[in-house]
């Protein structure tokens, strides 16, 4: 039997806005995934350590502080270096449209802005897992 998908939901940096992170953590859990929500105030090192230690398949980053370019680049790079497997990185939050291609270039697979139904985020993750 396949093990359930393991998802880490993380809040990088000093941003405290966690309504979205909590909603999406619940949605992943309700979809039968194993969810680890890190809580707020996470550094790149803390997030990558959690992903590695929890052997996670997916990392969901929630950023509403404007620091998305920095964290997308730093976290994706550290994951490529340290994670034993390919980790799907998705991002949500407040991003100016011109920044979306930039975070994707860093390795974020998809950006889900305000108003995205949780079903489409869960669906995106499931399709990726099936295609893997």
């Amino acid at each position, binding site marked *: 039997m396949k093990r359930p998908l393991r998802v880490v939901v993380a809040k990088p*940096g000093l941003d*405290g806005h966690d309504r979205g992170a*909590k909603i999406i953590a619940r949605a992943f859990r309700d979809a039968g995934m194993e969810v680890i929500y890190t809580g707020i105030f996470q550094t790149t090192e803390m997030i990558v350590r959690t992903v590695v230690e929890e052997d996670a398949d997916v990392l969901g980053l929630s950023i509403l*502080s*404007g620091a998305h370019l920095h964290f997308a680049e730093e976290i994706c790079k550290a994951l490529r270096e340290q994670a034993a497997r390919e980790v799907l990185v998705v991002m949500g939050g*407040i991003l100016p449209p011109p920044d979306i291609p930039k975070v994707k270039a860093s390795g974020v697979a998809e950006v889900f802005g*305000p108003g995205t139904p949780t079903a489409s985020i869960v669906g995106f993750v499931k399709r990726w897992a099936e295609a893997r």
Partner: protein
Amino acid sequence: MGKATDLETWRQTTLAASLKKMPLRKPAFSTLSGIPIDDLYTGTSGTDPRVGFPGEYPYTRGVHPTMYRARHWTIRQVSGFGTAENTNERYKYLLAHGETGLSTDFDLPTLLGYDSDHPIAVPEIGKIGVAVDTIDDVRLLMKDIPLDQVSTSYTINASAFVLMGMYEVVAKEQGVPDNLITGTIQNDILKEYTAQNEYIYPPAQAVKLVVDTMEYAAKTMPRYNPVSVSGYHIRDAGSNAIQELAFTLGAGHCYVTEAVKRGLSADFVAPRVSFFWNIQNDFFEEIAKFRAARRLWARMMRDWVGAKDPRSWMMRAHAQNSGASLTAQQPDNNIARTAVQALAGILGGTQSLHTNSKDEAFQIPSEGAIKIAVRTQQILALENRVTDVVDPLAGSYYVEHLTDRLEAEAEALLREILDRGGMVRSIEDGFIQRQIADTSAAFQQALEAKEEYVVGVNVHVDEETDLPFEAFELDPDLAERQIRRTQDVRKSRRQAEVGSSLKEIKQAAINGDNVMPAVVRGIKAQATVGEMCDVLREVYGGFRAPIIF
């Protein structure tokens, strides 16, 4: 209940006294058709004492007898980004376009007591607010702003004790006498643990710091509001109006009762406690929320706490429409949402208002967008005549019913919190966070099931297109400039004075004394925000919140 039992008595006492201090904006008011507008409308069968008269206990109809007939609310747009120079420039833009009060957002490192040259700060410098490390930054922030004429609000909480001190020092450097320093600092730490999550110390120690600032400000700046108890963030974190009322009034009650435990009288601190409410989409419920908040707070202060001064009973408020209600999809629609929400705040009787800009679901507002937001308030103030009449919805069966129900439900929830050990206890064990998370999740489910609608998001959806929008761009060199300025200050200041003031702050915290006098000495010696917050970290420790989702 209030002094007046009938309209004529109210006119001769409460209204007459108010008009002497603050005359009406116009000698006479009328509708566009020429029908005269009277100074108050009441029911034909007498006035229900729970509704009462404006400017009188229980203040259901407003804290002022004349409301906007004498003076419009303050147009106060929160702004802050980059360095102090960047934000000062935006202030001047806003004042030039008719803003009447200032309000500042600080960046995350400042909110959390880290200096800009701390490694954790660097990616966040100036991103969602202005970076402040030393008194030099506040001098630049307030440059050319006459602080005896323009009231200023600071949105800061965990490190508010430092920023309040910096504001006081800068106002006094401008020559403003103590009793003319006006303004507000948010400084409502309890909602940080339940909603906004920008906290440093454990809740009980953080509340002690809030009481320090209340005691200090009451003595040194008697017209300054040292706490703005905020439902705004609780609501935007996903709560409903009842929870917003209960958790917010509960926090206000906690600060006042802690001050009383310290030996201060309720009437020494309560008159300067102000409030900050969210305005969400349920038009009539939001109007009723303001009315219920005033009535419940008045009763809490008079009957629960025993405050005698009517100023202690008045729930004075700032309001902002819900950022969470803005959509990234079809952003022009946010202009309409904002206008209707703002009208609810006005009909609710707010003293001050921030209207959101249409582009805030994806960036700090551009100048063009923020101008529309200011103009929205000006249209409501100058064109629609909603300001010419006091509490026009009083006596509406529906609005009075909602006011009663919101008051009763909020009081029941607040009593439940008090019965289970109070606000601090209910934060430490996650009771409040759980309530908010559950309400937020239920609303999200309702949206996804299309039981609730958001136009452009789950109904009347347009094909995705690239929207033409005015980009907001931060100065790319701001982090470097800010770090350099702070490091220059560190080199040039008198180190011995900094060191001794930091020791004094620490000792005051260890002894349980008020830290503010030592903090102000530290500020004058150019100690940094980070240094002063760090010495208290050594005494109080940090806080790890229960993880609830």
